[in-house]
């Protein structure tokens, strides 16, 4: 520029003596507005931290939530606004793969920490050297697929497997994992994909039915999974077992499909469930939701929100009083053996591992709840590109 800019007062964007500003993009409106619960729960957790602990390292957290309505060009507008106009210190838990893909490189190039993106796309975690700013948050889809595939291989050896997946990276990553996990224990006799805008998955289920499938691995949203399982059970009288991505192993699915219909469906869990009210941490979560989010009880989504909140809190804490973006990244990639209050396993990160939670317990739908069984399974420290069944540990 031609005109000398006045000296910056705050050399680190979004950080003042007593406040740090974070932001996110999410869907407060639009087809996936239900996930707005996550950002609101994160915000509730930050408010709780501000009130009860005076923030982190003497700074309160301010959390700016922008609504992109799940439209990528809007995400770009809003994230740029957050970074350039509102001067956030870091972006936290950006929601949605297509939306976040549109900004991930922008954040990378501008050195803005891009913490704990709200999807399990391997894109975020597969190459931390190329994209040091971005971190995942849930077990990545390939890893999750391997664990569930392994379960299928052990439970249904020699039978016929059918695959159903959303026709995008979510589905593709999941199926990659499932194949690796299953190995040659089962024959894959049918592969079906569907689009986000498909109304129901009946036709796909019909085809797998005709192919004589014995078990189905499915990577779909709660709405889509509900139509698939209802069609199999109610219209085809077909009680084929489903193995489901953790993305849909939650209360939404129970509400949409009905508890009897999904009975026996197997998936993965890495956080405690909202129905475990006897667990003091879950009880505390419900209280937090009531106090800071207003009204109702917590659910899977708010629990996940709290998990993110705790992770961010931990990262900020580790980054210390002298906050810089580089410092935050260093802190976020040096978390070892951190147990968030509602986690079922430890969080570990490193400069080569931006995938905080790598594993969990198998869960099964029983009476409308997802009940854990078996041991903790992890693939700790392995990058999704190279991961194989051998990397799993129990």
């Amino acid at each position, binding site marked *: 520029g031609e005109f000398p800019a006045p000296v910056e007062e705050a050399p680190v964007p979004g950080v003042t003596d007593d406040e740090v500003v974070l932001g996110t993009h999410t869907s407060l409106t639009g087809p996936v507005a*239900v996930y707005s619960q996550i950002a609101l729960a994160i915000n509730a957790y930050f408010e709780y931290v501000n009130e009860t602990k005076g923030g982190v390292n003497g700074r309160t957290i301010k959390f700016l939530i922008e609504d992109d309505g799940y439209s990528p060009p809007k995400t770009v507008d809003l994230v740029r606004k957050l970074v350039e106009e509102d001067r956030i210190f870091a972006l936290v838990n950006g929601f949605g793969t297509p939306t976040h893909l549109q900004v991930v490189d922008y954040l990378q190039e501008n050195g803005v920490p891009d913490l704990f993106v709200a999807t399990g796309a391997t894109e975020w975690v597969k190459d931390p050297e190329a994209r040091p700013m971005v971190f995942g948050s849930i077990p990545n889809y390939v890893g999750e697929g391997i664990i569930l595939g392994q379960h299928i291989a052990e439970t249904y050896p020699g039978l016929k497997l059918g695959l159903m997946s959303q026709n995008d990276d979510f589905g593709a990553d999941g199926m990659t994992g499932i194949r690796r996990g299953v190995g040659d224990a089962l024959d894959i006799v049918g592969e079906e994909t569907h689009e986000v805008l498909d109304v129901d998955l009946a*036709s796909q289920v*019909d085809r797998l039915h005709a192919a004589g499938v014995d078990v189905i691995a499915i990577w779909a949203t709660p709405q889509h999974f509900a139509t698939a399982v209802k069609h199999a059970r109610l219209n085809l*009288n077909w009680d084929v077992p489903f193995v489901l991505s953790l993305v849909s192993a939650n209360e939404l699915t129970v509400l949409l499909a*009905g508890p009897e219909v999904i009975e026996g469906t197997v998936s993965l869990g890495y956080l405690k469930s909202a129905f475990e009210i006897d667990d003091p941490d879950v009880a505390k979560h419900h209280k937090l939701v009531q106090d800071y989010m207003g009204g109702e009880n917590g659910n899977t989504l708010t629990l996940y929100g709290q998990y993110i909140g705790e992770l961010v809190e931990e990262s900020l804490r580790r980054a210390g009083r002298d906050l810089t973006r580089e410092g935050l990244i260093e802190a976020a990639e040096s978390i070892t053996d951190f147990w968030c209050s509602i986690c079922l396993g430890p969080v570990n990160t490193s400069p080569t591992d931006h995938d905080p939670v790598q594993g969990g317990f198998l869960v099964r739908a029983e009476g409308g709840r997802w009940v854990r069984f078996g041991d903790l399974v992890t693939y700790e420290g392995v990058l999704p590109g190279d991961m194989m069944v051998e990397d799993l540990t129990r």
Partner: protein
Amino acid sequence: MDLFLQQLIGGIASGSMFAILALGIVLIYRSTGTLNFAQGQMAMFSMFVAWSAMSTGMGFWPAVLLTLLSALAMGALVEWLIVRRVEGTSDLNSLIVAMGLFLIFDGLALYIWGPLPKSFGPFSFFSGGASCVGGVCIGRLNLGILVVSIVTTVLLYLLFQCTRFGLALRATALNRLASRLVGIPVGRMLSTGWGLGTAVGAIAGILAAQSLGLDIRTMFFVVLFALAAAVLGGLDSPVGAVVGGLIIGVVKNLAGTYTPSSVGSIDLAVAFAVIVLVLMVRPNGIFGRPVRMRV
């Protein structure tokens, strides 16, 4: 062969879902000339109304009745309060208003009922297992949807074609000034058209809640197919709406079944290619009246 038949029946089943929503679209288009993009979200709203009614312990049929009546009132009110402000300015303006309504109903439902799905117990009437012949099955619910949409079509056809009231509804959509000149209460007709269309949408919503679940986004994508169905059949033909819906359902299923997986998924593309091809031959839909030029 079984697979083919099953896909055919499955196509008819999901097609009847598109069809019944398309009927409401046709009804509103034919009686007011507006292409109602908000049809899906309004149906979703009615579906939540039904849920609320039932969650107060109301029985199924009373709740359905209440929902239909409230949908009728809601549609009429929307027309009277909002749509009428732009009536006669331009088709595109009513499209904007429909988009506005889409957003308003979406937002209102979110505000009133929150973002979480609701569970809607099965209706005794449509629940129960599938009926199978050989290896080919159709669910009770799907059968129910198909029957309801056919009955609705017949009723609408009779309404439009055989009653004086239906004639007046159509007249209003074609020419407001002329309608006033022959003594038709134009305002009331427009409100009634919207009311009826919304009520048909409510039927679609209640049925959809059964098969697709009760959620803000349940109708989000159904309406896209319903619009396509209405256009494919001919926007002013109730029969066309049903035929259009069924064609889309069946073509999509068959395309999905018979595309080699090495190519990838292409069912949507094929379904819409078929729509375009049909429109090339019949530019006003299968059952639409051809418009000829006269100077």
